[in-house]
Structure formats: C-alpha cells, structure tokens
C-alpha cells in the first residue's frame, strides 16, 4: 500500500482521537476529583449523540454549534446525578459505586431504546462529504471541524481549572478532601459541579461524534470501555494524559483497522491498555498515587 494511504488514515485517526480525548477527559476529571469511576460514561455520551441527531433531523441545527447547548444539558444531568445519587456513595466501596453506575447505565440505554428504537441514526450535514487536500493528504472536513472543536473545548476546560476560583477550589478537593472541608469548601456542591463538567465534556464530544459515527442506543457500553482504555493509558486523573491517550488510541485503531481488519481494531487498543497497566500503571502522564 502506498505511504500516503497510511498517512491519510493516521491523520484521520488522530482527528477522531481528539474527540475520543475530549470524551475521556470527562471521565478523567470525574475520577480525578471525585474518585468515582463513571461506568455510565459511554451511555451519557449516547444521550448527547441522540440529542444532536434529533436537533439536526428536526430543525437542521448543526451538531458543531449544538454542542454548546447539548453540553449544557449534559452538565445539568451530571450535576443532578451527582447531587442526587452519587454523593451518598462517595465513601462506599468501589463495587457498590460500580453497581450504582451500572444501574444508571442500564436505565439510560433502555430509555433511549424505548424512545428512539434500536435503529442506527446519523447526521448528514452539508459538509459531510467535503474534504481538504494538502499535498497528498485528503482529510474529511467533518473530522477536521470536530477535532478543532474538541481542542477548543479542552483548552477552555484547562483554562477553567487553571485560572478561575471555582476551578482552583475543585482542584483543592481533588488534592486533599479533608483539607478542602477544613478550609470551608462546599465539597458536595463542588463534586456535583465536577460531575457536571465531566458530563459536559462527554456531551460536547458526543455531539461531535455524530459527525463521525452512527448512533444506536447500544453503543454506550462500547464507548464506556473505550473511555477507560484512553484514560488509563494517559493516566487516570491527568487531563493532558486523557487527550494524549485519545490521540494514541485513535491512531492505533485507525492503523490497526487498515493493516489488519476493522473488527479487530479495539483488540489493539486493549493491548496497549494491558501494556500500559503493566509497565506504567499510573498511565503515560499520570502521577503515582501516594
């Protein structure tokens, strides 16, 4: 196969990887602060994807613009979920939290199934078949827009955690739960905010994802697993790690799909996960837990 085929596939994989990264960023933020693994992460993304599909097919609203209101809706959902359900569980053992979020996931998948039926849905934008050509490189326009939007969203999030008072307070909760309580932070509310922010990330990522893949109610668990793979590869709790992990997994999947067979592509993603867990359990950019 000529070299530029590989190059094209690699670039396309990296752009998809940016959207993966944003999705995983949500999981990473939630785990890094609340220490709860969101086993309903992919399911939450499928909510966002269906919102985007409905807004598009009913009102012809572009998912790239709609990602802002969709992220807001998911923020509200995440906030409510954390303050209503998960907050009492933060001191419970992991298997208890796991069960809680699995139950949430089951409910989401099946509500979507009842409302939208089992068929795959898709968004056909006007620029769906456009592409940019740079030398030998041909890139889907939709993927470029989605990747750029993911980078923008992630940058805003970095800025929020770095420069705002609330962001600093949330980081304080993550660093030292007791200390945060002692200085008078409302930890439960900050946790709810954090879960909301994580949900907003996955919401925005979901809206963009509709430009790349079809959506069915059943895709949730697949993306939950994918988000785990990415986040652990990059380092659970590390924001930059989630983006790096997304790029790496996006690239791996694309190349594995080209060289071997598309159906075997996630095997390589899991292979990377196993290697990372064995040789660098804290992830590529993660810090060793004390």
């Amino acid at each position: 196969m000529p070299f530029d085929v590989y190059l094209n596939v690699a670039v396309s994989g990296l752009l998809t990887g940016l959207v993966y990264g944003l999705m995983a960023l949500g999981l990473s933020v939630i785990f890094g602060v609340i220490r709860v693994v969101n086993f309903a992460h992919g399911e939450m993304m499928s909510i966002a994807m269906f919102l985007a599909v409905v807004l598009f097919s009913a009102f012809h609203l572009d998912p790239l613009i709609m990602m802002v209101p969709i992220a807001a809706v998911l923020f509200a959902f995440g906030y409510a979920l954390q303050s209503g359900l998960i907050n009492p569980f933060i001191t419970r053992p992991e298997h208890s939290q796991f069960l809680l979020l699995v139950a949430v996931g089951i409910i989401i998948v099946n509500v979507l199934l009842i409302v939208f039926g089992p068929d795959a849905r898709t968004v056909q934008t006007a620029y769906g078949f456009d592409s940019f050509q740079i030398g030998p490189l041909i890139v889907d326009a939709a993927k470029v827009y989605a990747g750029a939007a993911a980078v923008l969203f992630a940058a805003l999030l970095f800025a929020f955690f770095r420069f705002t008072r609330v962001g600093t307070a949330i980081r304080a909760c993550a660093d030292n739960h007791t200390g945060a309580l002692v200085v008078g932070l409302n930890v439960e509310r900050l946790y709810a905010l954090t879960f909301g922010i994580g949900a907003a990330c996955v919401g925005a990522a979901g809206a963009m994802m509709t430009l790349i893949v079809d959506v069915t109610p059943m895709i949730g668990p697949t993306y939950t697993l994918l988000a785990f793979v990415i986040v652990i590869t990059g380092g659970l709790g590390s924001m930059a790690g989630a983006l790096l992990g997304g790029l790496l997994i996006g690239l791996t999947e694309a190349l594995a799909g080209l060289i071997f067979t598309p159906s075997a592509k996630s095997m390589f993603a899991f292979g990377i996960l196993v290697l990372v867990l064995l040789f660098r359990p804290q992830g590529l950019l993660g810090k060793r837990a004390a």
Partner: protein
Amino acid sequence: MAARLLAGLPRRAVIALALVVGALVVAPWIVNDYLITVLILILYLAFTGQAWNIMMGFAGQLSLGHALYAGLGAYIAAALFTRYGVGPWVGVLLAMPVAAACGAIIGFLAFRFGVAGVYFAILTIAFAEFARIGFDHLAIVNAAAGLFLPVAQYTHNDLWRLRGDPTMFYYVILAATLAVLALCRILRQSRIGYFWLAIREDEEAARAAGIATFRYKMYAVMISAAVTSFAGVFYAFFYNNLFPEQVFNISQSIQMILGPIIGGVGTLFGPILGAFVLTGLAESLTAALTACGVDLPGAEQVFYGVCLLFVVGALPEGIWPWLSRRCGIAERTA
C-alpha cells in the same frame, strides 16, 4: 463432613437451608418446564456469583472480567466435544487448569506490578475484551459465526456426555451450586480464608503480620477462575451455542457479579440469595409487563435498573446481611 460444614451455623439457619435445598430437590416434580429453565439460570448465576465472591468477597480483589473464565471453559469443552467427541467432564478437567492459568497470568502481572483497586478491575475487563475480540477472529472455533453443539432428540439422559432434558441439567447445576457453597464454607473456615480476610481488610497489615499476600491473592484468583470455568462448560452444553460476542461480553461479567453484590459481598449465602432475587425480579417484571399489555423493548430493563438503584441505595451491605440479622440466622462473624 456435613456436620463439620454446618458447625457454627445457628440451628435456625441449618433448618432454613435444609428446607430450601429440599424444595429445590423436589422442584422438578412440581413446577413446569419453563420454571425449570428459570431455576437453571438462577442456579447458574448463584454458582458464578459464588465463584466471583471467592476473589472479591473473600480476598478483596475486584474482578470485572469473569466472563473470560466462563468463556474459556465453554469454548474449551465445546471445541473438544464438537471436534474430537471428547465428553464435557474431560473438558472440565482441561478447562479448569487453563482458566486457573489465565487467572494466574493476570494475577501475576497485576500483583507484581502493583496494579490494584480500580486499575486491577479495569485490567480484568481488558483481558476479557481481548479474549472476546480474539475469539471473534479465531477460525478454529468458527470465529464470529459461532460454535454449535449438535442437538438431537434424546431418548434418555446421558449424564456422561451431558445430553438430555432440562431436568438433568437442573440437577447438575444444583449439585454444583451446593458443592461450591460447601467449598466456600471450607475455604472461609480454613487458614487460607482467614488470610484472605486479612488481605481484604488491610493488605499492608496482613503483610506486616507475615502473610505472603502475593501468593494468597494468586490462590484467590486461580481458585475463582477454575470454579468459574466449570460454569462455562455447563453453559456450553446447556445452551448448545457459543458466540464470542455473547460469552465474553462485559455484560456477562456484570450479570455474574450483580447477584453477589445485591445479595451481600463476602457472605456465603448472599450470592445465592442475590441470584434468586435478581432473576426472580427480571422474570416477574417481564410477566407483569406482558400482563399489562405493555410491549416496549427495554421497559423491563429500565425497571430492573431502578430496582438495582433502590436496593444498592437502601441496603449498602446487600440483602443477606440485613435479612439474616432480621431472622436471627446471621453467621457468627469470624
């Protein structure tokens, strides 16, 4: 033997257990074929839940990839049967060591490299997913097209080759569930069981007290994996068809561990109770929705999820610890 197993249980608990076992033994004469199939599913989940509980409930190692061991057992026995005509009981003899070896590899890698907690749980998912996709492309077991066991009308039950009517399968899985219950009871009361409890409660302290934590965690994974693989063999011969997409799916792993979590992690009777409650719940939801004329795919699952939320919210330790205290049949905690 039986006396030693029952020693230390309150008299009321022994009577209750005898009643339940008695009811299960005579059940095939009373209930119809459909309910026998439901009971088989319940006992299957009780069995796998019990096996998972050895690892998580006793030794505190959270595995979310137990479908791997069941799937290996199923595929090994089914492949031997269809290709070489080797019976399931010989298959079990091969499946158990292979599953234990897989558990040992995962355990070795994880425990050596200090992978613990959530990371360990996700590593177990990764291996199961790896196997799922791998078997999907493995031509020797028909890859994604699935492996089928020959089904025919049997005039008599062939226990040796596990070919026969549901009642035979029912007694096989009932015997297996009771055997694994006894095994768990023995393990719990033995040296290894106490070591596990120590590791579960505080691994650092256990190590400081001189327990070889690495070795005992390995035992937990290997025993749990080997026991689970037996369930896989049973699954293959009862359902007669295997698809990697199904048997290695994470939803299988989740289904296996819901029972023990709902019933009570680390208890002896929790996994069994949990299996009865959850499967009973699912079946009655289906029946209730059909009776109401609701025909919505997914509606039953939504209720199921809501019930899970309710139980896990109301009874953090699971149903069994709460129920046994209420009925005065709590195991004396060691």
